[in-house]
């Protein structure tokens, strides 16, 4: 192997690492590694200052390899690849070593051990970096059409937003009409606008946009293809329509929690859920009636089916929706007594104003302890709620009422087929999971699939629309460039070593390997049209395996099954992995503290540098 010029940077992460790992000792331990020309530590390697410093090191020391030992590669691989690219170093010559999640945070009880482990991990990273080579991403043109799954408020608004960016849209709705839950609703908080009117306006807006194709009574049944160029199959009325799309937006909404019969009196006459109450209000005029009589008293029991063992989540919208409903009832049934039996009133933000208003208009609030829920009984034909009210010194209060409203929350909609087709990640609460709940709330780990609205978690309608438009932005940012760059860290077959056994073809979960007659290059920075971007063309009578660069995800499933070792994964070649293992195996037994002679493999005495390195950056 030719000699390399590698720069190594060890991050303190402002104490996240250096509280447990002796960073100067790590610097000292690796500074004399072969091929390493510069080693530094930094308070925050990801900070602009240190990036500038690495940048100038790359230029000044003519680095051809880069190792940053910091946090998870999930966080900063792209940060440093991008920095390397700006400095003129191929991004794939960069290796991120995780000494935070996999070291300092995991070994807070053993700083010395953590330091030893960090040294090993950095050495392994250096070993892997010795075997890197420059790689260029494959650039593919993308399909300027988006599939939106779900024709509720969020999906409709997203479809309009996408069309307004100049993209073609196919909006697929399972039921016969667009509109979803909001389409059937009357006045909604916080602005009191009628749900059906909102949906009608969106339907008109869609009608004015020829770029949007609406398929109702339709379901997505299959998806294949590669990033930016997918083939989807939509079943519409017994017919299968095949479409090419660049991205898929999922907006399939939520389901209401259905109380069990007997749960808080559910099933008794006069006990109904919030959506049932709202629906009665929306479909009638004048005073709310029950059994033909004007309703004079209502008890709302909050958090039914939320914040419990079965559904640990808070459904977020129900407190505000209930208070809003109570205000409507105050208008429709003046003088009605309304009791809110709650745990925490979560009328966040400006919805707090509705809470204040409802109290001023006579709603009474009673708080029950988490472990002491209210009880509902029906005696002498009358409903009675019993609650131990913390706001009245824990007194047991009996509320005889005409109606008991169970404030049921949102639960995840059962949608197994769609989950299977899109391989959607489902969280413990049953909602679809985003990549990162904080910073990347609409992206999923599945390439090309974006989620929005309540399929991701409970939201109000305005929040759902905002997330739908955020999905539009994410999709627009990806597709409007016209091209996508595919990760060049893909597998390739050495045709001379391939014996044509085709075991790899079976092993590939993405159908990216086929048997061909002539060797095909993999990767290589050339521009691929959508037509080419499919799977490799099989050649009849072909004898060797070939990997379609655009189909390969770099998962590595093929390489180990190859009996002849003909497959290598760029960025993780056999030679690199072997070198990494060798480096990790060269463990440092038992040096206490950061200095002194230690015994290496075969009894070799290694010297760990005692003094702080000269090039320490803080």
């Amino acid at each position, binding site marked *: 192997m030719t000699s390399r010029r590698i720069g190594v940077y060890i991050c303190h*992460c402002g104490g996240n690492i250096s509280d447990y790992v002796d960073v100067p000792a790590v610097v000292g331990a690796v500074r004399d590694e072969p091929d390493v020309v510069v080693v530094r530590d930094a308070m925050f390697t990801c900070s*602009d200052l240190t990036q500038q410093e690495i940048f100038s090191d790359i230029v000044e020391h003519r680095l051809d390899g880069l190792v940053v030992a910091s946090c998870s590669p999930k966080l900063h691989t792209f940060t440093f690849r991008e920095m390397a690219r700006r400095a003129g170093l191929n991004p794939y010559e960069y290796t991120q070593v995780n000494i935070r999640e996999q070291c300092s945070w995991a070994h807070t009880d053993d700083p010395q051990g953590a330091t030893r482990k960090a040294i090993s991990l950095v050495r392994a990273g250096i070993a892997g970096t010795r075997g890197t080579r420059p790689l260029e991403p494959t650039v593919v043109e993308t399909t300027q059409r988006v599939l939106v799954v779900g024709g509720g408020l969020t999906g409709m608004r997203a479809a309009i937003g996408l069309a307004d*960016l100049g993209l073609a849209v196919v909006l697929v709705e399972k039921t016969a009409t667009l509109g979803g839950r909001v389409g059937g609703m009357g006045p909604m908080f916080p*602005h009191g606008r009628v749900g059906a009117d909102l949906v009608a306006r969106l339907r008109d807006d869609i009608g004015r946009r020829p770029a949007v194709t609406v398929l109702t009574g339709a379901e997505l049944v299959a998806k294949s293809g590669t990033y930016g160029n997918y083939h989807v199959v939509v079943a519409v009325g017994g017919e299968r329509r095949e479409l090419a799309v660049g991205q898929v937006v999922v907006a399939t909404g939520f389901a209401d929690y259905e109380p069990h019969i007997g749960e808080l009196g559910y099933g008794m006459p006069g006990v109904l859920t919030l959506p049932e109450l709202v629906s009665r209000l929306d479909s009638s005029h004048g005073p709310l009636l029950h059994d033909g009589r004007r309703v004079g008293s209502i008890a709302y029991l909050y958090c039914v089916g939320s914040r419990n063992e079965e559904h640990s*989540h*808070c459904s977020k919208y129900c407190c505000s929706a209930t208070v809003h409903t109570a205000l409507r009832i105050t208008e429709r049934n003046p003088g009605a007594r309304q009791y809110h039996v709650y745990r925490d*009133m979560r009328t966040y933000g400006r919805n707090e104003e509705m809470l204040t208003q409802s109290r001023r208009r006579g709603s009474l609030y009673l708080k029950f302890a988490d472990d002491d829920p209210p009880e509902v009984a029906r005696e002498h034909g009358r409903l009675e709620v019993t609650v131990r009210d913390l706001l009245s010194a824990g007194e047991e209060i009996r509320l005889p009422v005409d109606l008991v409203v169970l404030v049921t929350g949102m639960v995840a909609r059962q949608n197994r087929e769609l989950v299977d087709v899109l391989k959607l990640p489902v969280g413990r609460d049953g909602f679809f999971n985003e990549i990162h709940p904080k910073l990347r*709330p609409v992206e999923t780990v599945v390439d090309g699939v974006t989620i929005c609205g309540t399929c991701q978690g409970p939201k109000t309608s305005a929040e759902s629309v905002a997330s739908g438009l*955020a999905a*539009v932005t994410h999709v627009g940012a990806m597709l409007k460039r016209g091209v996508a760059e595919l990760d060049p860290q893909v597998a390739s077959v050495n045709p001379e070593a391939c014996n044509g056994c085709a075991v790899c073809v079976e092993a590939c979960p993405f159908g990216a390997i086929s048997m061909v007659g002539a060797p095909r290059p993999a990767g290589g920075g050339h521009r691929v049209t959508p037509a080419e971007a499919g799977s490799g063309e099989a050649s009849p009578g072909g004898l060797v395996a070939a990997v379609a660069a655009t189909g390969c995800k770099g998962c590595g499933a093929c390489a180990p099954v190859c009996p002849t070792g003909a497959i290598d994964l760029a960025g993780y070649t056999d030679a690199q992995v072997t070198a990494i293992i060798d480096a990790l195996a060269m463990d440092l037994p038992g040096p206490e503290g950061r200095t002194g002679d230690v015994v290496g493999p075969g009894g070799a005495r290694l010297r760990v540098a005692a003094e702080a390195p000269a090039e320490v950056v803080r």
Partner: protein
Amino acid sequence: MRYDALVVGSGIGGMESALQLGEMGYKVLVVEKGPSIGGKMILLSKVFPTLDCASCISTPKMGATAHHRNVTVLTGAEVAGLAREADGGFHAKVHVATRFVDPERCTGCHQCEVACTVSVPDQFNGELVARHAAYIPFPQAVPQKALIERAGTSPCTFACPAGIKAHGYVSLVRAGLYGEAFDLVAETTPLVGTLGRACYAPCESQCTRGALEGPVPLRRIKRFVADRSRAAGGRPAAPPERNAKAVAVVGSGPAGLTVAWLLARRGYGVKMFEAAPCPGGALRMGIPSYRLPVEVVEADVANLTAIGVEIECNARVDDLAQLQGQGFDAVVVATGAPVAARLGVEGEDTLEGVIGALDFLADIKLGRATELSGRVVAVVGGGNVAIDAARSALRLGAAEVHLVCLEGRDEMPAHEFEVAEACAEGVQLHDRWGVAGLEGGSRVEALELKTCLSVFDPDGRFNPRFDVGGHDEVVCDTVIVAIGARPDTATFPSLAPGGARALVADSATAKTPVRGVFAVGDAVSGPSTIAKAVGAAARAAAMVDDWLQGRRLEAPVAPLAVVERADVLSRQAGYAQRPPVAAGLRLGPAPSNFAELEAPLSEEEARSAAGACLDCGVCSECHECLAACPADAIDFAMRDSDVEVDVGTVVVSTGYHLFPAELKPQYGYGRYKNVVTGEQMERLLAPTRPFNTVLRPGDGRVPERVAYVMCTGSRDETVGNPLCSKFCCMYSLKQNQLIMGALPLADVTVHYIDIRAAGKGYDEFFEQAKAMGTNFVKGRVARVSELANGNLVLRYEDIDNAGRIVEAEYDMVVLAVGVQPNADFARLFEHGELALTDHGYIEEVDEDLSPGATSLAGVFVAGAASGPRDIPESILHAGAAVAQAAAYLESAGARRAAEVGA
């Protein structure tokens, strides 16, 4: 410049907006008011509910924003106005505050920060610790470039006629850098010791501290600096690198010495010509030694000779052409105002015992003083020279000294304190009298007086009126005339054409009518003060230098506007009074010698006095950073600039303000040191935390019991905010867990109304806090009071336990402060303002279907500027704003295309 989109604010909403628009291919300008992008998020500890390290997940966004090929970032910039253009876009004016550091050169090495002598509360650390006036905002700041905080010119510095950085030397003395303080004054003048004694210190009269217990004694601090330098044998000045040019300076008073000094420091060969037997002019020959000892002047003059200035004494120059012929490339005339004014009465020249004050004072300084033992002396004049003469006469043994002046005591040109000191020493004052005549045979026997009705006419001109009937006389045997002086115009008639009463020189360039000859100081202005002469000389030196180097003669950059003292005092809720430094004046009747009257400041006094400085201008202009910067990046002459851009759409992402906790006085924030805000606790927990652990600010103790007071400033109509701030519950739950992680033995109690954990994974996070041991107590806190040991007693309603009123003691209290709107931006639109909600947030006119759309087409709001939002909600909201902003740009583009097509 044209950009597709203007994004105002660079918090998480602004960065997300800019990045997404940039990714879509639009050119984006981000305008950020602060010195770094990143907003509030980068300063957080971790984020809920994932407990990711906030800075670790913010820095990639910051880096990506700063380096995105389609995104341009202006920090320190504010939008100053927006006007709608015909194409639906906007014309924006952006005001960019200077950093006083060239970002191209700055390497972020922190050397300026280390050298800076001013400390101010660090706004990026919740003001829990100090930072320097020269600083890099925080370790992850983007750009990682220094800036210098300058609120303006400090009043003391602004007041100094000499242009000395008064605030600068005070802050250097405070830092113990006495030599550097000397050098800073010496950047302007060599007369450090002289000014430390004989300056009338207009700086002190402007000192903001004067509104408290009294001004910082700036002059005496300067004297301390000079004395210390002299005691150490003077600062060995590095001899400057000589250039080939030579300058002659005629006269060695304060102006001449200053010009010579500054030019010599710039490498010129300088030779001074002095008519008197020793250099120093009025300093050496005029001001009595009890005010300004001879050795002090000699030490100041030695500064010049140390760097090679040649001084020839007893060398009267009367032919400038001859001087120019001797090879001097420029001549500076600084001959002062040596010609005494005359009484114009009979006997003035003939009677024995009538002497001029200037001659009298000069004789004393040259050791040939007249013995006045037993004599009765009348001094005529009301200025400082008259006072000097009168007090000197006392010291020479005069039996009586009478001071006769036209003015009333309150209008005498002499400083009030000098008159008072003279009277304290025994000088008898006869004010409002004019001299009518002198009596006597060979020697003067009396001074005849006439009543002076007024000195100045209604136009303020000197034009005394006398009462013909009012007579008196002072019996005396010596009269000293001290009624003014004027420049010598006779020696150089070419410099005073047309019978001018002073030498004529351009006020900006100091050029005289004669090419190559400059004039400066009292010779041009008439008698003034040392400081004014020094100031004029310093400006003239720069002009002479420019002229000799063939550069354009340009006025120096004007100083920043003076800082308003009221603004300085309002920076802090209150100020502790400090004991003023003793005046140290040794005054007594019948002084018998010329020993210096004023005692020096001890080192302790000097540093303590300097420590009282309020750092009005923030940066003191001590110039330590200039010397420290290895990249030569610092430039105090940089000024703010304005940028005008055209943009297609605007995304407003100006975020929110935190509720100022001092508005809930019952919780004691600002008064009780161990009551902190959620923001401050965030900093105590952050990876870049100031103390490396959680401790209470009052005494640095690690708290064992921490209480949270929820809804501080939210859900509270008494402070005008009935709304819920949405994320305080969650950040408090996060902090609870982090505190318990950092301090495993600590008890954490949350006093709440409702815990609003509404969001994905949020209620689970609440359960996690409960499981870790946070105590939750429902009920509002009525008040917080402080115990002598700094502990805090909370009085609250314990609703869970029958609503009892309970008092509980804690070590530390955290106020979960909520949000307040930041709608400053809304006013900037020249045609049609942005509509606001009742509560002052930017209104979303169609929140149900178009969240982020505002009342103005093409203007969108992203994040908490339109209402409380946490990070993921801000990101989603930014996404919504961007989708519509992009649609707006697309439709505008389509319209333009259609117009072009038509």
